């Protein structure tokens, strides 16, 4: 029972991060119909920037701020420079470009920061709370992770629901031609969308790194889990991404806790294939027939 509780709580914490990551994928997919396979590598890169600052003596929060700003800039620059030319083109070309970014960023991080394992500090206590005389796997840091993800999500909801900018971004994603006619600068909105997604991806990278080890390939598996979560919820649905993320976090945590951590990626593959074969539009997609 205690193990079940621990595995569930760990899964919830992981799930929150996967949800944030899936949300970043969904943001980009909705506006440009591109799955950003470089998302993980971008998050990894900004996390290394934060780590460099923290190791130079700055606080965790300074590192966090720099990582998020760096993510914003990186996302915007990448969209302008390499994604814009393949937007709306053959879908395979865009996939290949994001994969190229993925390899290049990962190798660049290894060149600049080295490929050794380095420990990343956590801002809060990593020891589990004690309830009665039982130690549970829920830490002050897990609360921070969940709160951070919830705050970001509420921020995004507020942006898209209650601001002009959010409305313009939704319009640009919904119909480029019409929004252009109505005076929305569609190009800028797409750049902004990539930048925001990269901020969320950077946050996910930092949260995963907190209290564990970072190395250039540490986001490789996360990009897969985030993708599976996004597909589970439906690539078009931000709400679906959140539910998908939490579900994947829990499922993978059970697999890891009861079967073996080596099988986690295999389980993710199995879930992905099952979802794509049974309900390819995802659990929450509005459009019934979607080619996958």
């Amino acid at each position, binding site marked *: 029972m205690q193990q079940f509780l621990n595995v569930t709580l760990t899964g919830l914490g992981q799930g929150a991060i996967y949800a944030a990551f899936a949300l970043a994928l969904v943001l980009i*997919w909705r506006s440009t119909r*591109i*799955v950003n*396979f470089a998302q993980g590598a971008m998050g990894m890169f900004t996390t290394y920037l934060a780590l460099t600052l923290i190791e130079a003596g700055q606080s965790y929060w300074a590192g966090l701020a720099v990582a998020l700003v760096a993510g914003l800039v990186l996302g915007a620059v990448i969209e302008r420079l*390499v994604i814009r*030319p*393949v937007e709306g083109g*053959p*879908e*395979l*070309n*865009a*996939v*290949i*470009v994001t*994969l*190229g*970014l*993925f*390899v*290049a*960023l*990962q*190798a*660049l991080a*290894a*060149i600049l920061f*080295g*490929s050794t394992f380095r420990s990343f500090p956590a801002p809060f206590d990593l020891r589990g709370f004690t309830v009665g005389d039982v130690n549970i796997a829920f830490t002050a840091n897990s609360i921070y992770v969940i709160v951070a993800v919830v705050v970001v999500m509420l921020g995004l909801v507020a942006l898209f629901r209650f601001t002009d900018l959010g409305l313009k971004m939704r319009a640009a994603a919904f119909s480029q031609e019409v929004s252009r006619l109505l005076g929305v600068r569609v190009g800028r909105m797409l750049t902004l969308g990539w930048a925001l997604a990269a901020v969320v991806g950077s946050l996910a990278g930092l949260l995963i790194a907190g209290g564990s080890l970072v190395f250039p*390939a540490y986001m*490789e*598996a996360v*990009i*897969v889990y985030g*993708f*599976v979560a996004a*597909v589970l919820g439906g690539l078009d649905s931000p709400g679906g991404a959140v539910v998908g993320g939490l579900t994947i976090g829990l499922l993978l945590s059970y697999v890891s806790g009861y079967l*073996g951590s*080596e*099988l*986690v*990626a*295999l389980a*993710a*593959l199995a879930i*992905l*294939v099952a979802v*794509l*074969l049974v309900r*390819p539009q995802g659990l929450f997609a509005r459009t019934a027939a979607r*080619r*996958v």
Partner: protein
Amino acid sequence: MVQQTDRPATRAVPVRKRRFRWRPRSTFGRHGLAVLVALVAVVLVLELTSPFRNSQLATMSYYAIAAAGLTVLTGLNGQISLGHGALMAVGAYTTGLLLGPEGDGALTLPLIMLIAAAVTALVGAVVGAAAARLHGPYLAGATLALAVAVPGLAIYFDHTLGGEQGLRIASPEVPGWFDATIYFLFAHETPSAKYLAYLGWGTLLLVLLLLANLMAGRVGRVWRAVRDDEVAAELAGIRLGQVRVLAFVVSAACAGLAGAVLGVVVRLAAPSGFTIVLSLSLLTAVVVGGLGSLTGALLGSALLVFLPPAVTNLGIGAGLDGTQAAQLAPFVYGVVLILVMLLAPTGAVGVLKKVSGRRRRTR
């Protein structure tokens, strides 16, 4: 999909009669002749170059086998696969298990390689059946998941598959008849490394011959039809699912053969040898060479072998340490992938065709 305009089949044929035809009329004859010429070239190159170049060429052979398979899948049938590294792992582990730790397995190496290809083709059939309904990014994501998942299996079954350390693969002995033939021709013994290069290139040429014929024939036309316009293909009576699965099976069998050659050349099958970067390197090879062209796959795999030492040396010259300089090669792959997609999506072969076409027109 990368645009690829096939040349019109009817070219102006010279009407002069009784001209000596140096190119055989049948497709198979033409391909067979090209392979024979290539075989002679391979023998000469392998005999005239140093053992170090021989081992590089052995490496190139398995990259090229896998890239040829991938270019059929991605270039001709329009299905992207980031899981070919994982499929190579299946081939390599199968070879290792059948060959036995001391090379004392009951089967001969060619038979083992065939079995490795068959096993991988079977895995490819399963993956292909799931992948047949997927497009672009969905297929990329699913095969990426495959690439991440498969190395975990080797660690989970560490009793049979050797876990993180991997499975040691015995180096096969040089067969007596082969040694004798080379001795007869060139009057020297064949070291094991050179035999492996021969083995790899022999397999590669065979694979290229089979794939070239497949591509030139009905199957290739059907694959291209499905790639270019699914609806039209389906209306023409083509069963999309079957065609896609067949492409995946053929491609996977190539990856399995490549894995088998990799296994005996590297003498080790370990999870760290089949990372995502391997799959993405293969993708780089086919994209840079030109999607859908076997020549392109060859060019691209030559790049995978001969570029890393060059850029690593440059990096060390620029003051990087060894491990950092080793990462320059994947960095270049990534940058090259992006640049090719932005500037010349048809790859090297496409650019060459365009240049030679322009020259022919102006003449």
